[in-house]
């Protein structure tokens, strides 16, 4: 049994020896190192893997054209098992062990908040592809995002509901999801009509008929469903079975091949998005073609945001002229009119992206633009 003692001691010594502070200059390696933390496993693995794939595609494309500042870009990805505590550990490793010059991540706002704290502390710029909670970029001046904020998107939904003349709206929120709750809060702030029902579910739930039966009994004109695509189709299908035949509408979390593949059942539903898959802009067309070629799948919203996060970050490094965190931060803050696949991105003084929102209507597995709402 003595071997266990020795093994434990050996592992301990190994850990301590490997654990000395690395005081080397950041960004001096032969490659430009960008860190990424994402939920590659765990409850929200699907979002993490999508944004990871988008990012990898962006880096591959840039490296094929010779990289940035004459160097290849290398992404070091860390999984956080969909857990905020792990997210901090992952970011800490990226910054202090791997010596990355910038960090990309996370999809979920609570993990971006957790990881963002570390980035801010070490003054490493962090760009979140899809964290929509307004507080994320308030962590500090090194934290950026390229997506909408919850209050903006919730407000867009509210404006749209009023334009449509929906007087009575039922809300169906995912309570375990801060994105969904944020959108609901934004919607409630902006909406002038009556909210007849305020029901909730939890991501991963399968059966919504109980709540939908309840919503149906209140007779709404439309149902606001700020959820992710993983739940949305199931909700609408079950609503139709219960003959709750009013329009459903939601945010960019709907954007996915899954929603389109559902076909006719989603007819007459609306969602807000950064772009339309039918958008003729070359940035969109090229991205979709390249993504399908590499992964043999249609991209979802997370993939396109991951891709744009990579592109905006590498563009900022190029504009900074050197791979130093402070310079990259300044360049990121100065991003203006970047032609991203998810829209033309301008970073405002609060480090949030400003881009117009499209309201898309679903019909027969296709979308078409029902409305465009500019950031106010």
């Amino acid at each position, binding site marked *: 049994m003595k071997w266990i003692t020795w093994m434990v001691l050996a592992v301990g010594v190994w850990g301590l020896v490997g654990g000395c502070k690395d005081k080397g200059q950041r960004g001096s390696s032969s490659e430009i190192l960008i860190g990424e933390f994402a939920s590659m496993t765990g409850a929200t693995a699907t979002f993490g*893997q999508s944004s990871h794939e988008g990012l990898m595609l962006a880096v591959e494309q840039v490296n094929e054209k010779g990289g940035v500042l004459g160097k290849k870009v290398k992404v070091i990805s860390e999984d956080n098992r969909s857990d905020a505590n792990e997210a901090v550990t992952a970011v800490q490793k990226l910054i202090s062990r791997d010596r990355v010059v910038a960090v990309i991540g996370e999809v979920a706002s609570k993990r971006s908040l957790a990881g963002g704290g570390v980035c801010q502390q070490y003054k490493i710029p962090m760009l979140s592809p899809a964290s929509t909670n307004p507080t994320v970029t308030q962590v500090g001046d090194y934290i950026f995002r390229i997506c909408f904020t919850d209050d903006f998107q919730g407000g867009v939904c509210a404006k749209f509901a009023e334009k449509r003349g929906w007087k009575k709206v039922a809300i169906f929120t995912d309570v375990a999801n801060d994105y969904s709750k944020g959108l609901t809060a934004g919607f409630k702030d902006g909406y002038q009509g009556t909210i007849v029902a305020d029901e909730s579910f939890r991501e991963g739930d399968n059966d919504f008929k109980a709540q939908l039966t309840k919503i149906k009994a209140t007779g709404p004109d439309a149902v606001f469903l700020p959820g992710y695509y993983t739940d949305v189709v199931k909700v609408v299908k079950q609503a139709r079975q219960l003959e709750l035949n009013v329009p459903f509408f939601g945010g960019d979390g709907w954007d996915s091949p899954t929603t389109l593949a559902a076909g006719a059942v989603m007819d007459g539903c609306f969602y807000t998005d950064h772009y339309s898959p039918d958008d003729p802009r070359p940035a969109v067309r090229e991205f979709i073609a390249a993504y399908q070629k590499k992964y043999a799948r249609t991209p979802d919203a997370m993939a396109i945001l991951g891709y744009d996060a990579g592109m905006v970050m590498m563009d900022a490094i190029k504009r900074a002229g050197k791979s130093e965190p402070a310079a990259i931060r300044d360049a990121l803050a100065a991003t203006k009119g970047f032609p991203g696949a998810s829209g033309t991105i301008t970073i405002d003084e609060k480090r949030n992206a400003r881009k117009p929102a499209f309201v898309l209507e679903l019909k027969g597995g296709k979308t078409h633009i029902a409305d465009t709402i500019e950031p106010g």
Partner: protein
Amino acid sequence: MKDDGSRSRGWSVPAWGVNCALVVLVAGMWPLDWVLVEQMDEYYLRVLILVGLNVILATSLNLINGITGQFSLGHAGFMAIGAYATGSLMKYFSPTGAGAEAALLALLIVGGLVAAVAGLLVGIPTLRLRGDYLAIATLGFGEIIYTLIVTTDRIGPFEIGSSSGLHAIPIRTSFFWAYAGAIVCVASIWRLSYSAKGLAFRAVREDEIAAAAMGIDTTYYKVLAFVIGAFFAGVAGGLYATYDGNLAPESFRFTKSIELVVMVVLGGSGSITGVVVAAAVLTYLPEQLRFFAEWRMVIYSLALILMMLLRPEGLLGGRELLRWRRVAAATTVGGDAVQSGR
């Protein structure tokens, strides 16, 4: 340090000596903290601190599962209660300056006490339940706690944060606090476990009916185990809250409880040093497995199954690290030893 009831080994250290040694040890963490912050890589330091927190959690769970032979699958729930109590109060009061460290200590204890009350509430059903039933009931308790946190925005003036998590908690925990907590926890449970009371805990584990027949108040000891275990889990939660400054409800679900149970079983249920080693190894191992990316958890679970098949009694199998030759009194290590089919 008495051993587990058998004859003593010729030399022994008086109690005051042990106490002094402990105080010196805890005090020694202070300069060590300073050295580590100066010299150690931040990532490794973080892993080291997480090891400290997991040592507290696993050791306190060991009191319930390993030593008293109850089977709790809801330890993360106690941790969550402590974390949210300490975190929320810390955020509300935001102590600064000289009093901050004292306030941290006070709030850690408050967090522990709140968790202990929850432990009392969970401990009471254990009067009726045992074995697998208890496991599922405690698991249910953990899920109930999670649901409550996820749906609560604030309690009075204190923020809980619901599903968005609780953020911007003042960061106070350092290496010193984590390891002072770990030392106090391990020492307390060690001394409790190898005292006369410890024999009562073990008696409940070995055979509850026989223990009751010998005049041991089994109910009292079972509830006591839950309360003490919950207290330390709450303290660990509080340390965690003030270390990261962020709390997300998902961190305290079923998966975390399982992780802790695995530490206890892998270390050899009932063996305090074994569990400490297992907590350290199982915190460090997944970090080393990062290389495998999405296969990491597959490898982790495979390792777990193989470990159980090849060495079901755990690393140390109920023995303590520094006492190799003496097999502990337990004949059926691993708690509830009912074999398949009664």
